[in-house]
């Protein structure tokens, strides 16, 4: 399958380049840790209320630190005009997009999987988190895909325009509101010990729906964004 192979070639290329330079991932880790630290000053880790807002805090860290990675996604193709070579190559825009989205997903997940235990330790929620670790990881996996899908297509959209670093978050976060909201509420609920059932299932379905719809929309429109 040519499409799948091309997706993998692009994903591996991005990951290899990033692992060698570590520019985006280091900045992302550092930013995540700083935000977690600042939250510890702002919110008392002992209080019960911190558990209630834990989901919100965590996903703010993920969304902001994740954007540093997502911004690099198409920006890394600008030096030396590499984007031209990729567009000229006989791969579909969709394969290019999906390959980059996959690489971004891996990198953002890496940042999140390091931030999660740090968050749990700083806020004394290690036990609740470890007890619900699988549902929490499921929410992280789905929420991060939504963040990645939107962040990658908008990285392509903003790569050549003025004020790229400002425009990417400005465009991405409003679109992500439903996904972030669902992820935050589910995570808070899980950290407070509730199961992923009942009301939470609706959020899960909404998140899955969001991911599917926007993956489809991005795959359909990416060619227009790349070539015009």
């Amino acid at each position, binding site marked *: 399958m040519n499409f799948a192979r091309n997706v993998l070639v692009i994903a591996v290329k991005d990951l290899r380049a990033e692992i060698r330079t570590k520019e985006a991932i280091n900045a992302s880790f550092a930013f995540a840790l700083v935000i977690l630290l600042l939250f510890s000053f702002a919110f008392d880790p002992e209080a019960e209320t911190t558990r209630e807002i834990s989901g919100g805090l965590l996903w703010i860290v993920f969304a902001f630190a994740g954007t540093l990675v997502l911004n690099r996604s198409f920006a890394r193709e600008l030096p030396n005009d590499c984007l031209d070579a990729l567009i000229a190559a006989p791969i579909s825009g969709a394969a290019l997009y999906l390959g980059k989205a996959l690489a971004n997903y891996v990198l953002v997940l890496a940042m999140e999987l390091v931030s999660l235990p740090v968050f749990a330790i700083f806020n004394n929620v290690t036990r609740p988190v470890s007890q619900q670790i699988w549902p929490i990881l499921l929410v992280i996996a789905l929420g991060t895909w939504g963040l990645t899908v*939107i962040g990658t*297509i908008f990285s392509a*959209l*903003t790569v*050549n*325009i*003025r*004020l790229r670093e400002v*425009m990417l978050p*400005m*465009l991405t976060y*409003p*679109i992500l*509101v*439903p996904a972030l*909201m*669902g992820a935050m*509420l589910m995570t808070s609920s899980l950290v407070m010990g509730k199961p992923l059932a009942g*009301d939470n299932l*609706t*959020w899960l379905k*909404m998140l899955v*729906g*969001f991911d599917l*719809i*926007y993956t489809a*929309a991005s795959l359909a*429109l990416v060619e*227009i*964004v790349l070539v*015009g």
Partner: protein
Amino acid sequence: MRDKIVYVLGAAAILLLARDINVIAGLPQEANQGAIFKIIFFHVPMAITAMLCSFVALVGSVLFLITRNFKYDALAVSVTEVGLALLLGNLVTGSIWARVIWGIWWTWDARLTSALVCWLLYAGYLMLRRAIEEPTQRATFAAVFSIFAFIDVPIVIFSIKWWRTQHPQPVFWGGGSIPADWYALAGWNLLAMVLFGVVLTAVRFSQEESQREIDSLRRMAHAF
């Protein structure tokens, strides 16, 4: 010819609004909330008209991507700006109502919150346009973003509503809605609001077309 139609529509909108305001002022005050309840005659039609604007923006964006005719791009930006202004009106009237009734300037009620998020979405559209110099690229990218924004509107409304169902708060309008015998008046005001929106869009549209002509004339002058 088009100008004449716009003038007629504008006159109709103003007359209709004037008549409505007259009737609204004459209505009896609502039992629980007093005079301020009448702000609903503007608050709700603004939201509905704004939603209509977002749909027309979607149509304009899709048509632009298919035909590459800049007319559709001009339509999309004009109607989005008008929709944003109306949505801002919706937010402000909501805020005024909340201040008078509850003493607070803002409440995270489902409708107000959804309106705020949608406002941010389409404000992003305008910011994106600002950031792109070249007209064809600007129109293309704005159209793509407009499609993404429109897809999000129902998702935003649904998810915020679900959030408020899970964490209920005192509902806006104190649980009341427009009394049945006032529906007709609300309908007339909605019509007035839509006419108003059409007129503003038409004016902005011709301004956008003129701007494009000026830009290309400038480019030609600089090139040669």
